[in-house]
């Protein structure tokens, strides 16, 4: 089966533009995570879904960031009025297990966003 896929792989946006980043998790995976990875840094948590419910959005850096997963499968991370500090790689990960139990997260290739 296919792994986690993300599109687009690269996105260049002018400051002030809105962008939408898509994540297709592994089929049947319950949980979906978004992380932001700045250049030379480790990934940092943004938000987490279990099925269609957004259970934790504490890592979203501002109210310009919005994520959804309306049918419990594909997820979209939207950034409004992009700023230069939003330039980063956005990673999506999915995992099979819901609450409780051992789990591992499978990562997609990421979307590299450059804001000019």
């Amino acid at each position: 089966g296919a792994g986690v896929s993300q599109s687009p792989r690269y996105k260049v946006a002018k400051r002030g533009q809105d962008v939408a980043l898509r994540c297709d998790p592994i089929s049947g995976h319950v949980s979906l995570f978004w992380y932001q990875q700045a250049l030379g840094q480790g990934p940092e948590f943004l938000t987490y879904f279990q099925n269609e419910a957004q259970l934790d959005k504490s890592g979203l850096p501002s109210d310009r960031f919005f994520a959804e997963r309306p049918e419990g499968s594909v997820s979209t991370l939207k950034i409004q009025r992009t700023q230069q500090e939003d330039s980063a790689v956005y990673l999506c990960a999915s995992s099979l297990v819901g609450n409780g139990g051992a789990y591992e997260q499978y990562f997609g290739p990421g979307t590299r966003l450059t804001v000019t």
Partner: protein
Amino acid sequence: AQSVTQPDIHITVSEGASLELRCNYSYGATPYLFWYVQSPGQGLQLLLKYFSGDTLVQGIKGFEAEFKRSQSSFNLRKPSVHWSDAAEYFCAVGIYSGNTPLVFGKGTRLSVIA
């Protein structure tokens, strides 16, 4: 809150030499511990994980890691490095119960020379 420290930003080893990448974590309860590898332009690939049981865990590509609770460490080792191992390595910690976000270290970049 959990935290992960990878003290070495960049390590260079000769092909065929042994490797140890250090990872220290801070978490009050039993952690889930992971090592991921990231090649340029690629996503994160899981090398190995520790949930419970034997503190020496084996992973893919000949890697192993040892969980030492007394030292709050989870160091990654490989007896003989190959040129293809050159990449960025990330240690991560998750909470024991529940499916929760991972906390990553800043990574160690591994260079391999002939």
